[in-house]
């Protein structure tokens, strides 16, 4: 019996010793609190290093005093510039180039696959007015300004990568100087044109059920269906609303960049620049599609914006509801 009991007793002792050791491991380090007390510990944590405080304030961009007067001269370090740099040089420049090149590739591939969307019926010879002379003048003024602003603007973003190897630094510097001046002077003119456009074409651009059907039939671009459309089809309406939103944001952010004399701070400028860049890339990408469809993509589409007159057969194919409306108006006269 005694021989059998001895191992259990030893096991029990081992167990209790183990528990005691564990408790000691956890409690002994806490005895430090008996000596210091919790109140003292809190006081110590509130006191900060005054030297570190100074530099912490500096890093947080808090304003001090400077005898040198001027914009934000009292701010020692502004941290947001580095974020702006990373955004501009990184994702915005990279994805922007993918977007522009991607759209061009898709359009080229589409043209090779589909070719020009031809007129399905022979020309009747009878024409109706699609755009008045004033509307055409407005369109082409805006278009020319858009192309100039687009090229000069993209030169500032991608010129260093693409044009400096070709023109050299001096050559590109001369061009970029002119480009910057042109961009800054023509920008406000473009804004005026765009705003007039948004106002006078607003009435043609309410989205409705017809537009949904138009999208479902891929706007007649794919297949042989010819979805109904009003004066402006759903694609043109999307272009309008892109201009009315992104385009207006582009113009407003451009004003912030164009007129530094109002003393706007760098953070405002950086934000405006990010908005300006993103909206500009969206508009340029969309304009590729607009130009493609309006010129080589669709037979007869350019006539409406050059001469102002379109053939009735073309109108029947692309804007049947508008044609009906115009004809009804003529009959009622």
């Amino acid at each position, binding site marked *: 019996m005694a021989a059998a009991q001895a191992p259990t007793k030893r096991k029990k002792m081992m167990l209790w010793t183990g528990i005691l050791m564990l408790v000691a491991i956890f409690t002994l380090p806490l005895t430090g609190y008996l000596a210091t007390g919790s109140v003292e510990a809190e006081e110590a944590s509130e*006191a900060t*290093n*005054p*030297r*570190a*405080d*100074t530099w912490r*304030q*500096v890093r947080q961009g*808090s304003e*001090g*005093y*400077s*005898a*040198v007067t*001027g914009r*934000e*001269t*009292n*701010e*020692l*370090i*502004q*941290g947001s*510039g*580095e974020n*702006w*740099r990373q955004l*501009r*040089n990184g994702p915005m420049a990279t994805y922007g180039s993918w977007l522009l090149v991607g759209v061009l590739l898709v359009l080229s591939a589409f043209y090779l696959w589909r070719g020009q969307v031809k007129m399905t019926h022979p020309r009747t010879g009878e024409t109706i007015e699609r755009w008045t002379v004033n509307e055409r003048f407005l369109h082409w003024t805006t278009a020319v300004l858009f192309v100039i602003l687009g090229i000069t603007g993209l*030169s*500032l*973003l991608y*010129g*260093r990568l693409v044009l*400096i190897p070709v023109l050299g*630094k*001096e050559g*590109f*510097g001369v061009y*970029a*100087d002119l480009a*910057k001046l042109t961009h*800054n002077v023509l920008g406000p003119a473009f804004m005026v044109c765009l705003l007039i456009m948004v106002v006078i074409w607003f009435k043609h651009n309410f989205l409705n059920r017809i537009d949904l059907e138009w999208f479902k039939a891929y706007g007649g671009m794919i297949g042989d269906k010819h979805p109904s459309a009003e004066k402006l089809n759903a694609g043109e309406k999307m272009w309008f609303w892109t201009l009315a939103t992104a385009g207006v944001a582009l113009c407003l952010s451009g004003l912030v*960049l*164009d*007129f*530094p*004399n*109002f003393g706007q701070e*760098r953070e405002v*400028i*950086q934000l405006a*620049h990010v908005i300006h860049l993103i909206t500009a890339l969206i508009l340029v990408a969309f304009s590729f599609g607009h130009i493609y469809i309006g010129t080589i993509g669709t037979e007869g589409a350019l006539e409406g914006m050059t001469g102002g007159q379109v053939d009735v057969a073309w109108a029947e194919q692309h804007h049947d509801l508008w044609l009906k409306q115009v004809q009804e108006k003529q009959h009622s006269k």
Partner: protein
Amino acid sequence: MARMKFLCDAERCIECNACVTACKNEHEVPWGVNRRRVVTIDDGLPEEKSISVACMHCSDAPCQAVCPVDCFYTTEDGLVLHDKDICIGCGYCFYACPFGAPQYPQEGAFGARGKMDKCTFCAGGPEEDNSQEELDKYGRNRLAEGKLPLCAEMCSTKALLAGDGDIVADLFRSRVVRRGGRPDNWGWDTAYKD
């Protein structure tokens, strides 16, 4: 080659603005352009500290990275200089710079920017050393004459140090060691103990 550095000892700067004035005078910079300025944090409070700041000649300079015409270059001494013949005055370096170093003379209406001007570490620009052209565009080239930047050379409390980064660092380290490292030490005794 040496890696040139500025260092402003915040414990020593007394906000006399002499560095600002000396710089303006030495380089004949135009009205409204300040290559250097002194900023005072907690002005009038016991924790008041003043720091003189100009272009810090960064190793990975944001101005250089965002410049659309790539007009910046880094010299063998680690100085970030720029070519005014290429600069278009777009303002991007000013947006990106953490220290507010790039300055622009106003050129034309609506605050249109002229070519950027900034601290050159008294090392001029790409033109021939000490030529009239360099003087007109970038100010004096003291480095080519074997001198250091004037702002630091004439600093009365030697708060502003400029020169080879290793020497500047050694100098500052010796000061810090003498001051003692206790973080709650502050005030004028920390700088002028002995």
